[in-house]
Every structure is written in C-alpha cells, then in structure tokens.
C-alpha cells in the first residue's frame, strides 16, 4: 500500500515543524503594541500588548492551521496511514473530536485574562495553552511517523 498523496503529508509535517519552530523560537513572543479590552471592545493601539495574550493568540492560530492541514492529510490518506500506524488515525480523530473544544477553551481563558489580568487568570490561560501545545506536538509526532516510515 502506498500513500496517495505523500506531498500532502510532507506539507503537514513542514507546517507543524515550521510552526513549532516559530512558536518555540519566539523567546516568549516579545509583544509589541496594541491591547484589547474584550469587555468594552476598545482597542488601545499605543498600549503595550500583553506577552501572554500574544503568545496564546499565536499558538491558537498555529494550532488551527496545523489541525486543518493534519485532518485533511489524514483523511486523504486514511487507509494508508492506518496501515502504517493506527495511532496516527486515533490521534487525528482526537483532534476532530476535541480540537474545537481545546481552541474554544483557549479562547475563553484568553478573554477571561484580557478582562481581568490577574495571576490566577494567567495560570488558567497557561493551562489552556498547555493542552493545545500537547495536541500540536502529538499531531507533529504522528505525521512525522507517517512521513518517515514505509507502509507494509
């Protein structure tokens, strides 16, 4: 059995790798200017942005891009990838079932923190970020397996 579109898998692996490198290499994602108050909807372009918020937003954006690519690549090559390792399918199915919830949880934690920038809300936001980071790493690991192992 062969992968129907190995390029698609490579694209996904590339995307995961680049995005993780970009995210990991951002050094805490030094923030520029621009702060939103979600309670009022007022955006203050001259106020320093919050590093935690910017990091969360970048992670969320990266996760959406990678989840999208991973789900598509896996569905396009489902039978072949199952033959390589059934855990690939299980991992992507988990993203299909829970991915939206993880992102919604991250958004909710981000908005809560933006509304009240307390250490407690920062901790909750960090926890939501950890869940999404873990899913990103999982997608990366399984797609890398798919791209580097030959089907039986």
């Amino acid at each position, binding site marked *: 059995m062969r992968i*129907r*579109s190995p*390029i*698609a898998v490579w*694209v996904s692996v*590339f*995307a995961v790798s*680049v*995005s993780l490198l*970009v995210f990991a290499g*951002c050094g805490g994602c*030094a*923030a*520029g*200017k*621009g*702060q*939103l108050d*979600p309670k009022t*909807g007022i*955006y203050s*372009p001259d106020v320093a*942005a*919050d590093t935690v*918020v*910017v990091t969360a*937003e*970048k992670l*969320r*954006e*990266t996760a*959406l*891009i990678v*989840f*999208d*690519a991973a*789900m*598509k690549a*896996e*569905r*396009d090559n489902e039978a072949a990838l199952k033959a390589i390792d059934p855990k690939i399918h299980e991992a992507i*199915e988990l993203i*299909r*079932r829970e*991915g*939206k919830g993880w*992102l919604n949880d991250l*958004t909710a934690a981000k908005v809560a923190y*933006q509304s009240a920038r307390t250490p407690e809300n920062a901790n909750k936001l960090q926890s939501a970020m950890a869940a999404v980071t873990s899913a990103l790493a999982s997608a990366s690991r399984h797609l890398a397996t798919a791209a580097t192992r030959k089907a039986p």
Partner: protein
Amino acid sequence: MNAAETIATALTTIEALNKLIPALIANAKRSGELTADQEREFQARQEAVFSQPYAQPESVSDTPPLPGPHDATKPDL
C-alpha cells in the same frame, strides 16, 4: 493513481502550501493583541475549518444503540 490524478494532487498541495506559509509567517510577525474584528475573523475561520467534511470524526454507528425506555406494557424477555 494515474498521471492526471497525481498532477491534480500536486497542484492542490501547492495551492495549500501557498496559503499555509504566508499565514504562518504573518502569524509569527504579529506583535500586538488581536482587535475585536480580528478575533471575530479567527472565530469564523475556526468554524469553517471544523465544518469541513474531513474535520468530522468517524461515525459511531458501529457501536450498539443504547437501550430504549422500558415498555411496561410488554413482558420482560
């Protein structure tokens, strides 16, 4: 897979790649918090992604259905 399918797959993939890289670069360059409009735009894209056919989890129809409500008018078997 014939040649036409291979080319079609490659073109689709290149198109996806063209969309992916600018998005990742733009995301990496951004330094301020999202505006309310950008936040709404993200939510719309998230909805669009998880509405795609390939984003739907497998059907669980293979699992046996849950038992229905007990019908007291029928004897237990």
